[in-house]
């Protein structure tokens, strides 16, 4: 099962290694990881997506790390999640128009252009990114890079719904 964890840590050397080792030691794979500073000086936030059966013990062990300040697991029904993706799709000049139409439906921006390819930048919920990939796969994906997933607890129903499908 996939779990999303938000881990607030002191921004100190070795913290990320300790946190990630906690998973690798137990043979769990980290699916995605993103780290960055928070609005509080000296604190960083690590967002981890892991495949693991059960996380209770692991969360406690994470909490035992001296530089870890807070650990919470995000409820999949109450979460705002985003990823950034850069994807280069092969496409000759003739197919450009069609591909750009598709891209605009997904709010994907063209950020690079060559005779035989288009490179898009796309931000959204993980599902939004994968449906875009489903659409463009047939052209041939030349290169792809995704940021780690970042996530935040949703505070109300008014929050901007995540783009998950065309036209939303």
């Amino acid at each position, binding site marked *: 099962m996939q779990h999303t964890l938000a881990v607030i840590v002191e921004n100190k050397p070795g913290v990320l*290694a300790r946190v990630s080792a906690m998973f690798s*030691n137990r043979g769990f794979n980290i699916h995605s990881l993103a780290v960055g500073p928070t609005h509080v000086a000296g604190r960083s936030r690590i967002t981890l997506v892991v495949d693991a059966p059960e996380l*209770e013990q692991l969360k*406690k062990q994470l909490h035992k790390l001296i530089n870890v300040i807070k650990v919470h697991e995000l409820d999949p029904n109450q979460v705002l999640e985003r990823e950034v993706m850069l994807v280069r799709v092969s496409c000759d000049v003739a197919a450009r128009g069609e591909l750009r139409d598709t891209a605009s439906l997904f709010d994907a921006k063209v950020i690079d252009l060559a005779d035989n390819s288009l490179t898009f930048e796309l931000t959204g919920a993980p599902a939004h990114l994968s449906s875009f990939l489903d659409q463009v796969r047939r052209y041939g994906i030349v290169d792809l890079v995704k940021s780690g997933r970042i996530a935040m607890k949703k505070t109300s129903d008014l929050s901007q719904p995540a783009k998950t499908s065309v036209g939303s």
Partner: protein
Amino acid sequence: MTQKPYTGSNSLLESLEYEGVEVIFGVPGGAILPAYDPLLDSRIRHVLARHEQGAGHMAEGYAMATGKVGVAMTTSGPGATNLITPLQNAMMDSTPLVAITGQVATSAIGSDAFQEAYTTGLAMHCTKHAYLVTTADDLPSIIHEAFHLASTGRPGPVLIDIPKSVLNQGTTWKEPSLTGLPGYKPTTTGHPVQIAAAIDMIEGAERPVLYVGGGVIKANASEELLAFAEAVNAPVVTTLMARGAFPDDHPLALGMPGMHGTYPATTAIQHSDVLVSLAARFDDRVTGDVDSFAPHARVIHVDVDPAEIGKVRQPEIPIVGDARSVLTDLIARLQAKRGDQPAPSRDEWFTQLKTWRAEKPLSYEQDPNGPIKVQYFIERLHSITGGEAIVAAGVGQHQMWASQFWKFSRPRSWINSGGLGTMGFAIPAAIGAKTARPDELVIALDGDGCFQMTMQELITASVEGIPVKVAVFNNGGYGMVKQWQNLFYGGRLSSVDLTHHTPDYPKLAEAMGCVGLRAEHPSEVDVVIDKALSIDDRPVVIEVVVDPDEMCFPMVPAGGSNDNIVMGPEDL
């Protein structure tokens, strides 16, 4: 002559003095050299170990015998890697330790410099925390934090890796304060609602058992435990790490539970309806097969480390807190609830326990013509010393017999390697304990296999004037491993024979500056013990030539159910 500049090394020593360090166990070398110079002028004693593993175990022995933080210091690279075993040992047994390692100069880190090792990385999983110091100005605060971390919450080892360039860097010393640990706030007091619920559950129990772990000793909670056990009128089992937390001669004491535990202790847990775990961690050597462990028990689990709660067995009442504080609150709650009314008598339960005790005691047979049994020697030693000693043990059969047959009467009188099971622990740990408490009789009960792993520290003991006693039980081999090969591998003995004859232990002892004695016949046992006790100016090694074929019982085979206790070879 111009004044020497004040450097990181001076700051290190000043910080250690500030933390109240009396003794450092260590071995010098290139990267840590700058620290060894001001050490000459410091009031801190340095005990020069013969191997860094020895230094680490000495620091552990020191810490276990006193509750104070033990300190070990080594150079970079091999000095640091030799310290890994003691660090993991201290991690498993929650022993407060600060390890200081030299590191190559900051500019050389990552260049495969001479004697470089990624020490903080190596230590990542065998310490509570590890620091790499990057500027000398940070030393006072890092050292202060390290001592705080090592000794509070669940104690453990903390490593401080200091590059040589930092030791040589000019700096000033500033009184440290604890501001830098926003994520470290151990919960020490139990929740009152849980405390009250626990008392209700225990009071209502028909067959309660107090399952006491090493944390009770760490928390200095033995007095509170005694008061609590008597107040609730419940039998007490003490794990390998908790031997001495509760007096063995007390009518409520059942001894050690688990793989080589006493029949009444292990069986009482199996039949308990309420199991109160006090700073114990449901180790596999205690539980055997977890699914059949204490099957009828509702569990109350007290631990200062929240990660222990529910790790192996889900408790009905979890209480996070320091054992001493929680026991004090439990006693207060009990008094508030029950006033002067007596505890439930639980006659049926105590009658049952009495029967088990009578029917299945610890036993062995000593043929007056020999060979000597380890159990017999330990009983004689206990009787002759009146049990007034600190006892350290190695790992193996002799360790289990020591735990079974030495009758403990006070905490911090038992120094052994429980979680990691580190052979060779006894001699250096005993040296550390004796350094800490020079007025106590300190005896290492060691196996011949263990002895051969760390015996060189006897040179440390004789040169430094630390007169420990060592009984080395020579059964000519790795008795415990041989026992498993006999029981589970059809008697095919593979690499367990050390021979009775080589080395000549008394001669070896003499060569290391100790007195060497030998007992080969039961009639010699009291004589050598008396002789050993009469010598106090040098370490003494007694070789006890013992039965090579004796097996250690009771035994629950690994992973087996605690319902099936093997009392002797006839049960197999």
